């Protein structure tokens, strides 16, 4: 088990996941190998976001 302190990004993500869990019943994901924090169910993949960006139509 890795007991190092969380860095800023990890801390921010964990706070966001805890908040989502408390306020909106969002699941907190854990790593199946060591039960470490692995994100929240509310996360959106890069592919989904980039697909939306690359398909923005021309505007008139």
């Amino acid at each position, binding site marked *: 088990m890795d007991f190092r302190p969380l*860095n*800023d*990004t990890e801390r*921010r*993500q964990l*706070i*966001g996941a805890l*908040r*989502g869990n408390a306020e*909106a*019943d*969002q699941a907190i994901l854990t790593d199946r190998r060591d039960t470490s924090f692995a*994100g*929240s169910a*509310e*996360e*959106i993949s*890069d592919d*989904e*976001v*980039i*697909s*939306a*960006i*690359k*398909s*923005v*139509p*021309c*505007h*008139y």
Partner: protein
Amino acid sequence: MVRDIINLVNCWLHATTGSWWRERLPGPELFAPTTAKSDYRRLQRVVVTDEVNQTFFEEFAAHRASSRGDEEIGWVLLGRRLEDEVHVLAMLPAGTARSASSVHVRFDSEAQALGSRVVRQQDKRLSIVGVVHTHPGSLRHPSDGDFRGDSLWVRHLRGGEGAFGIGTADGPRGAIVSKEQGSQFRPPLPPYSEGEGWGEGGATASVQKLHELSGHSDAPPSPQPSPPSTGERGPDARKPLAGIATSQPRPHMQMSGELCFSWYALGAADRQYRRLPVELTPGPDLARPLHPIWPILEVHARRLDRLFRQLSGVTLETVTGASGGRPALALNVKLAEPGESLRLVFDREEVRYFLNRQGELCAVEPEAGNPERALYLILAELAGNAGPAETEEKELAHGLSTSQ
């Protein structure tokens, strides 16, 4: 169904069995069905952070004063889609490589894709929630051409619906409005109201620490908060227009002087846009540090995006460059050894390479002009240096074990 059966059995066991059973069984409330929070309803409002709102007006004003001021301009909106509202937390510029005229604008999506990767390093819940673009005349409503594209595009968005803003410059000139008179404000959005914005010590704080640790004379530049920019303004034009106050003559409109943004919602099944009330809230523009370095992002977008996809442990951040203290882009690649990383600093003129070993930085000069190739050459060199020692250790260990 299964959950309901388990719940019923659990309740029955609690009611009928002895106390030793009750001590060992989880409470029935743990099996209670959770409400599906991912169900989206029709958008009722768009909530914009005050910094994003300020960036809209500043960059629209700067665009109008630029050499391409008669063209349309726009931004992609990054934020959170909630049940019946969207929160706009960042805006990605159209870029200098956009295709635009007085009647159309098409964004440079490669730089925006990379920009989204950078912003979403901090919060993977952020998604694309809409688009804002401007009209040169006084049409404060999306056009028929906009509808044809947007009605198909919204299928890519969470909830199948998007927020669309139209910027015009047809308001009364010189109208000054105080904040008290002006827009409707709502309480801050957590967590960004608590000093956890991108530009407030998040990504940059760790870099600052890194540089404080290093005593190297050729150390990479240190990060500083970046001023706003459209990505096309000169360095002198990047000073923030302090104290932009906006008024809200109608629930779906924001005005500041002659500039006006009107908001609409559109879903995939809608036959027309509908007016979308806009509210402001204290909060950051999470993409703001990127705007001054947008031209650098545009130049290297394709290569950097490829690196993001090929390597794990890659992060991007803004730093202050060596040439005149201008902002630069830094790519960090985590190495296998703890506390070691590679750092590529993309300035407007050059790319510099650094190896960080436990906070000690040293400059590297790979013989390659292409940054992507240079990075892999450095990694190959490091692998070559690490290889023999590891092999020797294994051989030694193997020799010892066979001799015993």
